[in-house]
C-alpha cells in the first residue's frame, strides 16, 4: 500500500492534490528524488517541516517511513 504523502497549505497547490501515494520504504533522499520542480524546492527549504504519523521530525534527513505510514509536508503556518 506504500506511504501516503500529505501536502498542507500551498504545497497542495504545488503538488496538484492534497495527497499522493509513494513507494515504501521511503527515506529523505527517495523523497527528494520523487518530488520535482517547485515542490522539490519547497521540500528542501528550512521553512518546510515533515511529520511521520503525526510526529514532527526535528531533522528532515532522518525521515524513514514504511508501508502504511503517513508523511506530512508542512509549510509555514498562519492561524487566528
Amino acid at each position, binding site marked *: 500500500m506504500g506511504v501516503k504523502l500529505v501536502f*498542507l497549505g500551498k504545497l497542495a497547490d504545488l503538488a496538484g492534490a492534497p495527497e499522493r501515494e509513494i513507494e515504501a520504504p521511503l527515506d529523505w533522499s527517495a523523497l527528494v528524488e520523487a518530488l520535482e520542480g517547485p515542490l522539490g524546492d519547497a521540500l528542501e527549504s528550512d521553512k518546510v517541516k515533515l511529520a511521520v504519523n503525526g510526529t514532527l521530525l526535528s531533522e528532515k534527513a532522518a525521515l524513514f517511513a514504511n508501508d502504511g505510514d503517513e508523511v506530512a509536508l508542512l509549510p509555514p503556518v*498562519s492561524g487566528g
Partner: protein
Amino acid sequence: MTATKLRCCRLSAGAEPVRDIRLLDAPFAPGAYVGPFTNANPGLGGVATFVGEVRPDDGVTALELLHYAPLTLAGMEVLADQAFARFDLMGLMLLHRVGVMYPGEPIVCVSAASRHRRDAIQSVDFAMDHLKSDAWFWKREQRADGWHWIEPRDTDHADLARWN
C-alpha cells in the same frame, strides 16, 4: 499522583483547572462559549477574552483555514499546558475555526480565568501570539483575483519572540 493532579493542587481549594480546547468547523457565537466558561470557574477574580474576526480589508471576500488532524488539536493542548505552567490560571478556553469563513465571522476565541487580572490578560496575549504563528493552521484569503496563501507577518514573529 498524575501531573494533572499536581497542577490542580496549586489552585484554590476544590478547584480543578478548566480546559476547553476545540476546533469548530461552523460559524459560532463567542458569547455562547464565554458565558458557560466563566460560570465553570467559580471563585475567579477575572476573565480575559480575545475574539478575532475575519477583516474585510484588502478586498478579502472569504478566508479558509486548513488544519492537519494528527497535529493541530494536540498542539493546542500543549499550548494550554504551557499557559497553565507559566501563569496563575484557573481555566483556559481555546476555540479555533477551520474551514471557509466570511468577513465579520469569528475565527478564534481565547478566554482565560484567573484570580488576578494580569495573569488572565497575559495568558490571552500569550495564547493568541502562539495560535497566530506557532500552531498548525494554514490560512488563505480569497480576493477578486483568486485565493492567496497567507504567511505570518514579521510583527507576528516579533510578538511570539516576546515569550522566549
